[in-house]
């Protein structure tokens, strides 16, 4: 990998994210290998340099003044963490690809990554990793190996013959540690060394556990019956190995932080966790909504987190949470709880209801079910608010789990409402408060130019030097005053006011704040259809198209044009059934949206990623029967586009501009 590729690489971005919260006076300089740019300028010059290579290809130079050599270790930990984050990002993308085909991997990752207790107990986490691996097929045996210097030690095993520690180069594990890639042996005829536990095995699969670019262990499964392991098993093993590596890495970072006796370092690492895991990227492309976010970390890490979930069907979810307690454990708990929200927000609704996905109250109940026992065990609880925006319906639906009350500025009456479930006669407890509790959701209608504000208690409980709280009324006043600002500017202003209010007293809590502004124009009209991959469904799609065209005011499209839409939509729908669902069962949702400018069809499916837009142009000489579908769609529509969100559905969009008035019939 050349240094050119490094520039503005995901690695560089990750490293910058980790560097940005460092205090400005920290005398650490970070330079890329080619030397022509500082990722971070050293404030007082530097006379000690150290090269570090995160995973071989990532050459980064760290620079510190003489006498601060200890900082080089810290810098190296950051580089390693950035490299790890890149691996994880890649892994996460890989996971989304797999969503359609290998659900086992996904549920395994969530099961492990989402359990806060496991993040703090690596041995139990590795046991769970192994359990997921051997659950792939009845009769599987398996072991997790860790390399300790020149020796290989079995960390966990599920085997009739317990594996024993051995030389690191020995046998199949030794081989994959050297080659650093997985191996499947189906017709086992000896020659792989003679590990005692594998003597009766007829087939073996093994994958390396790679952390910080080094093979540090392996996950091995084997079966005494003949048969065939395939790439699905390898996919699962690879995913589980990455998960195990993450757990080990987190444990290493944590121990490093604790053993390093430097609270400062803990703050930095916690801050990194917060930046990377707890705070989602602010989405910029939500139709009909504008989002602004602000997260200002306090001197100590807090467990504030937020996340955003697109459903691809016109609804959009926000979760904002706050873990009681501080420090890295709180941050890890926050990350775990957030990952549970992510999991249940992106899975489908109960019993066959594929679109829309589960209701907010169902999502919160599922998360509660999943995390409460552990939170109670850990003696922690989490307040959160989960809100869904349905722009087409003009409805916000939220579930409050003991969080601070959100605010709603109603533009038509210029008034701020406090969204309090307590006022509605309900009390929703924080997650981890009680095993048995019910979460209810509340509907709040909204109109154009309304603003919602979600925030953590750091905002309302900021204190002036005299001891008075900033309070919710002051937040509401600031919201009303800033009603015409863009969402991002609004949250910046509000937090600025809080900081001025606290002045010399200082802010002790994280300030976390999300503003959601509703667009000024009413959303387009829409109709929806859901069809299964079965005989007759393409005809239903065409009838739907006819109905839609008949509903558009002024019926701007004539019969001939409608017939063309029939063709375009049939092509797009059969593409989904044939390719995203591979000819198997599956649901296709079609949304038609129209306004004065355009008619837009959105096709959503939960099949495997498939991008027809990338199809090759067809041949017209009669030599090939297929490949015309996409060409036809392009001929008929003004725009044909494909997107797929993280873990989300495939979305095809077909757009036709409405004819100009004088051309309309």
């Amino acid at each position, binding site marked *: 990998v050349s240094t050119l590729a490094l520039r503005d690489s995901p690695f560089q971005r990750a490293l910058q994210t980790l560097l940005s919260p460092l205090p400005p006076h920290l005398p650490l300089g970070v330079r890329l290998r080619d030397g022509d740019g500082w990722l971070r300028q050293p404030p007082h010059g530097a006379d000690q340099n150290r090269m570090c290579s995160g995973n071989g290809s990532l050459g980064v130079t760290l620079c510190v003044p003489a006498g601060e050599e200890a900082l080089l270790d810290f810098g190296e930990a950051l580089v390693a963490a950035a490299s790890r984050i890149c691996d994880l990002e890649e892994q996460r993308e890989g996971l989304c690809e797999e969503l359609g085909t290998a659900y086992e991997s996904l549920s395994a990752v969530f099961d492990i990554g989402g359990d806060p207790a496991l993040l703090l107990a690596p041995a139990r986490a590795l046991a769970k990793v192994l359990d997921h691996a051997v659950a792939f097929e009845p009769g599987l045996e398996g072991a997790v190996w860790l390399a300790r210097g020149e020796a290989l030690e079995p960390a966990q095993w599920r085997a009739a013959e317990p594996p024993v520690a051995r030389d690191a180069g020995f046998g199949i594990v030794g081989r994959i540690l050297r080659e650093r890639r997985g191996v499947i042996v189906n017709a086992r005829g000896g020659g792989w060394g003679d590990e005692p536990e594998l003597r009766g095995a007829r087939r073996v699969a093994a994958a390396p556990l790679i952390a910080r670019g080094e093979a540090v262990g392996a996950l091995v499964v084997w079966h005494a019956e003949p048969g065939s392991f395939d790439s699905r098993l390898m996919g699962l093993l690879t995913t589980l190995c990455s998960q195990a590596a993450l757990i080990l890495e987190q444990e290493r970072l944590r121990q490093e932080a604790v053993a390093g006796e430097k609270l400062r370092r803990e703050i930095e690492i916690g801050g990194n966790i917060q930046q990377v895991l707890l705070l989602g990227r602010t989405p910029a492309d939500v139709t009909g909504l504008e989002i602004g976010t602000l997260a200002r970390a306090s001197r100590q890490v807090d467990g504030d987190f937020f996340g955003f979930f697109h459903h691809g069907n016109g609804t959009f979810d926000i979760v904002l949470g706050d873990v009681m307690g501080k420090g890295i454990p709180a941050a890890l708990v926050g990350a775990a709880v957030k990952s549970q929200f992510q999991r249940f927000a992106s899975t489908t609704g109960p019993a066959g209801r594929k679109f829309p996905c589960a209701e907010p109250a169902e999502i919160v109940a599922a998360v509660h079910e999943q995390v409460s026992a552990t939170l109670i065990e850990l003696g922690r609880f989490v307040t959160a608010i989960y809100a869904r925006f349905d722009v087409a319906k003009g409805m916000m639906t939220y579930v409050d789990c003991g969080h601070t009350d959100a605010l709603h500025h109603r533009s038509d009456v210029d008034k701020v409402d406090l969204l309090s479930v307590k006022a509605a006669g309900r009390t929703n407890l924080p997650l981890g408060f009680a095993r048995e509790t019910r979460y209810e959701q509340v509907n709040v209608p909204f109109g154009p130019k309304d603003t919602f504000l979600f925030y953590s208690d750091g905002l309302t409980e900021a204190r002036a030097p005299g001891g008075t709280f900033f309070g919710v009324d002051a937040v509401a006043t600031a919201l009303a005053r800033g009603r015409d600002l863009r969402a991002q500017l609004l949250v910046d202003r509000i937090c600025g006011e809080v900081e001025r209010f606290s002045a010399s007293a200082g802010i002790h809590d994280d300030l976390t704040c999300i503003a959601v502004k509703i667009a000024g124009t009413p959303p387009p009209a829409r109709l929806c259809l859901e069809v299964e991959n079965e*005989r*007759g*469904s*393409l*005809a239903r799609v*065409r009838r739907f198209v006819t109905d839609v065209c008949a509903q558009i005011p002024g019926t701007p499209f004539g019969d*001939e044009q409608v*017939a*063309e839409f*029939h*063709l375009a939509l*049939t*092509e797009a729908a*059969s593409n989904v*059934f*044939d390719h995203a669902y591979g000819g198997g069962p599956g649901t296709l949702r079609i949304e038609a949206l129209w306004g004065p400018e355009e008619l837009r069809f959105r096709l959503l499916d939960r099949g495997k990623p498939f991008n027809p837009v990338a199809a090759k142009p*067809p041949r*017209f*000489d*009669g030599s090939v*029967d*297929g490949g*015309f*579908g996409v*060409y*036809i769609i392009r*001929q*008929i529509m003004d725009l044909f586009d494909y997107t797929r969100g993280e873990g989300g559905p495939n979305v095809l969009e077909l757009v036709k501009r409405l004819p100009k008035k004088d051309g309309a019939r």
Partner: protein
Amino acid sequence: VKHVSETVGSTHVVTLLDEALDAQDAKEFRRQMERELAGKECAVLDLAQVRFVDSSGLGAILACLRLMGGGGLRLCGLSPEVRKAVELVRMDRLLDVHANREEALAAIRSDAALGLEA
């Protein structure tokens, strides 16, 4: 796929009875035609009842055309919608299209008289 077949002189005439020929019928139609058209020199596909054909349906027709060695297959009775689809994928350049079954049969007769039979 519902259809009736008959032989007029040496020409095999297939009349489709379904309203649509789309991706969900195309495979079946193709199998049916492979059986029926095997060894035939000259055929007419009457689409007068068909209101909708998609690219898979067109693909099945192309397969019929190839089965017959590139010539000898004619289409007739195309509705404006079907004609549009045929033109979109430029199939009108690959085979003869006639207004109705009578014109198609007449064209075959005159081609035969001129010795142009494929």
